[in-house]
């Protein structure tokens, strides 16, 4: 019951910062929309590039935008700056609630609300000549939901670990920006992973990044079979377990460094 109350409180808090939420939504929207405009101009209807047709590319970037705002977490700012650097972690440590769960409750409402905004936005955009044709069938829906949840959890844990860097360093911006660059390239946020040069593609699949955004997007676009989705879900589960283990180790080590005085 207490966990539900905490979730509810953070959900209400999110609605007190509506304009800020809209700004974060716009960031995700503009990033994907600009690249979509590039492909709409660079390709002509009927043309294909790397096995992707004009319509498939459009669908990919529209779905990518929804996944971007739904799945990509921004909790490193709260954890690293607000909690650790400014000392507000102390209040969380004294509460009889897991910090991990609190952080999850703080981040999840924003993702859900922005995901809803995203779906509404692409439905409106598709009325203005942008092609949106999802290719999955009804029996794949549970798999897709699991892929989305898996992608969110991977993003959440990775961003939490980024935030924990603040236990050891006063400046974490460089690490955050390195992560953002790797995410942009290896999560398919610039081009679909199928269009990457072979070396880039091999490196990408050796990292967790494709499983955050690219895999759920490809599933929604109908570019994965049910068998491939099941394998991807299994891979996501393994990644989550590994990230959770690293999270626990980093937390136990970092909390000993925490002084609670703020910077």
């Amino acid at each position, binding site marked *: 019951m207490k966990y539900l109350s905490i979730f509810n409180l953070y959900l209400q808090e999110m609605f007190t*910062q509506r*304009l*800020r939420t809209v*700004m*974060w939504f*716009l*960031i995700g929207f*503009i*990033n994907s929309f*600009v*690249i979509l*405009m*590039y492909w*709409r*101009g*660079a*390709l002509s209807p009927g043309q294909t*590039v*790397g096995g992707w047709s004009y319509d498939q590319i459009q669908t990919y970037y529209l779905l990518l935008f929804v996944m971007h705002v739904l799945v990509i977490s921004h909790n490193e700012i709260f954890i690293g700056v607000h909690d650790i650097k400014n000392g507000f972690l102390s209040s969380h440590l004294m509460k009889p609630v897991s910090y991990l769960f609190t952080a999850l409750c703080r981040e999840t409402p924003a993702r859900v609300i922005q995901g809803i905004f995203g779906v509404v936005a692409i439905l409106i955009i598709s009325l203005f000549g942008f092609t949106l044709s999802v290719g999955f069938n009804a029996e794949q829906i549970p798999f897709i939901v699991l892929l989305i949840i898996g992608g969110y959890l991977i993003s959440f844990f990775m961003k939490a670990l980024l935030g924990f860097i603040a236990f050891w*360093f*006063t*400046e*974490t*911006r*460089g*690490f955050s*920006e*390195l992560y953002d*660059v790797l995410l*942009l*390239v290896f999560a398919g946020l*610039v*081009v679909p992973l199928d*269009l*990457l*040069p072979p070396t*880039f593609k091999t490196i990408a699949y050796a990292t967790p990044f494709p499983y955050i955004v690219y895999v759920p997007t490809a599933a929604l676009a109908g570019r994965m079979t049910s068998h491939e989705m099941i394998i991807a879900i299994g891979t996501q589960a393994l990644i989550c377990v590994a990230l959770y283990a690293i999270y626990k180790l980093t937390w136990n080590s970092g909390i000993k460094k925490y002084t609670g005085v703020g910077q």
Partner: protein
Amino acid sequence: MKTLKRYWNVYKSFLKINAKQVVAYRMDTIIGGLLASTVWTFLTIVSMYLLTLKIDNAFGWTRNELIMLACAYNMAVGFFSLLFMRAFQELPMIINRGWLDMYLLKPIDSQFSITSHSISLISTIRGFMGIIITIIAVHILDISVSPIEIISFMVLLVFGGLLLYSTLYILCTLLIWFPQLDNITDVFYTLRAMGRFPGGMYRANSEFLFILFSPFIIPIAIPTRALLGNITSGELFHLIGLSVAMFIASRVFWKYALRHYTSASG
């Protein structure tokens, strides 16, 4: 002349303070500055390389010209970040916590002191990396440039920087009414990234979009066209006219906004 000298002395003091900060927080400089500058420099070029991997030309620009645009973007962003970004990133906190009073009470123009007190010296790295990569790109891509084109590029880049500065200032002035919008500079970064692509791309989709987002699209694209020897007089006047107009608008809007500043922390 005396006023200019006074402002220059103030700016030198700001430079000294910021230089000492770089030395005091060396690890921050290495990790925050060097690492961040390097990764973003390479991302801009790598992403344009990936986007043009299977395309020979787009929107009236060849693949090589689009990659040149990415290189020029890095250089421009590096020097813009050096001069202004840290100050603008601190502005939401300054306004939200009521610290703007300290700037308003000083016998110096508030717009000047707010936007120049904090200088990200480490961003020089990105700027110089941008210059080096641009020079390398000119040679590798076999693009011929004349001294006139280089000078035109640099002069127009100054106007482009003025346009970006003015646009960001107008956006940040909104913080007077909406102090909780601490992510407004992140929105600016995203909009500024529209400048990685040529104006023709936006025009091809919607003339209205191009006009609306001109302050973000043209600051780097038009100087790059000057460097490549493709600039038209219309583009030249568009950039210069818009940058001067937006600068004047930013000052007028800031003066108007200060009448609504209540000095209470958020």
